[in-house]
């Protein structure tokens, strides 16, 4: 199903980036070192930004890099630092019965891929779409989805205040 049409370059790029992303994601959930897991998460996030570029969503890709690779990763590294994770391998990062997660994840993956392959057998993305201009996106944010936007501002405000209240020492 790869290279199903003439867009060979895009397909090769997609495959390479997807392989990096999956490898990084597996490292995040299996690594015995918290800092290595965080750095693998950077790989996954950057790969996701590249995929967004392939999907011609440039603004979302830039936001992904700014927010995830920039801010969220710094937060994670601060979290690792402040909870004094050992630098180096750590033995007990997994639950005792962690192996039960493997069949659950594989089962979910099987069902989801079956549904997806069954539902969108070889539907192609429209070819030759130029990048999605940012004007319709901002129009949609500030007209159709204004209420979610305002709710989101409130959520961010509550999160900031909540984080300060929770984390301060008094």
């Amino acid at each position, binding site marked *: 199903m790869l290279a199903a049409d003439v867009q060979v370059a895009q397909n090769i790029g997609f495959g390479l980036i997807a392989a990096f992303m999956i490898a990084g994601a597996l490292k995040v959930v299996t690594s015995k070192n918290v800092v290595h897991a965080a750095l693998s998460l950077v790989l996954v996030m950057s790969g996701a930004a590249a995929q967004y570029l392939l999907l011609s969503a440039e603004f979302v890709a830039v936001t992904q890099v700014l927010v995830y690779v920039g801010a969220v990763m710094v937060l994670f590294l601060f979290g690792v630092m402040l909870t004094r994770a050992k630098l180096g391998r750590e033995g007990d990062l997994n639950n005792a019965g962690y192996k039960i997660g493997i069949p659950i994840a594989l089962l979910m993956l099987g069902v989801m891929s079956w549904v997806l392959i069954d539902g969108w057998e070889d539907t192609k993305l429209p070819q030759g779409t130029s990048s999605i201009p940012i004007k319709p996106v901002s129009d949609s944010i500030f007209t159709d989805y204004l209420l979610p936007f305002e709710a989101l501002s409130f*959520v961010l405000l509550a999160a900031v205040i909540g984080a300060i209240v929770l984390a301060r020492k008094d």
Partner: protein
Amino acid sequence: MLVNNFLLLGAVLFCIGVYGVIARKNAVLVLMSVELILNSVNLNLLAFSVMHGNVDGNTFALYIIAVAAAEVGVGLAMVLLVYRNRKSISLDELSEMKG
């Protein structure tokens, strides 16, 4: 490009994230797995946005990124609080609410 390429990549990332949430004991690592799940959702939204030629998917992807940032902030603050009270962030030790 097939739309299924992106959807299947999203499904794989989602399942890896679910495995991480189930398997991990360290609270920071559980939060990282939740980020994997949120990213896979974004991938799906953008793929459908391109497929239907509609910008709503982009809008919601941006909203999800913002919500994820808020979630990580509050989550890590809670992890810090737990660490300060118990000198450990192992989630299986937090069993006071077990009935």
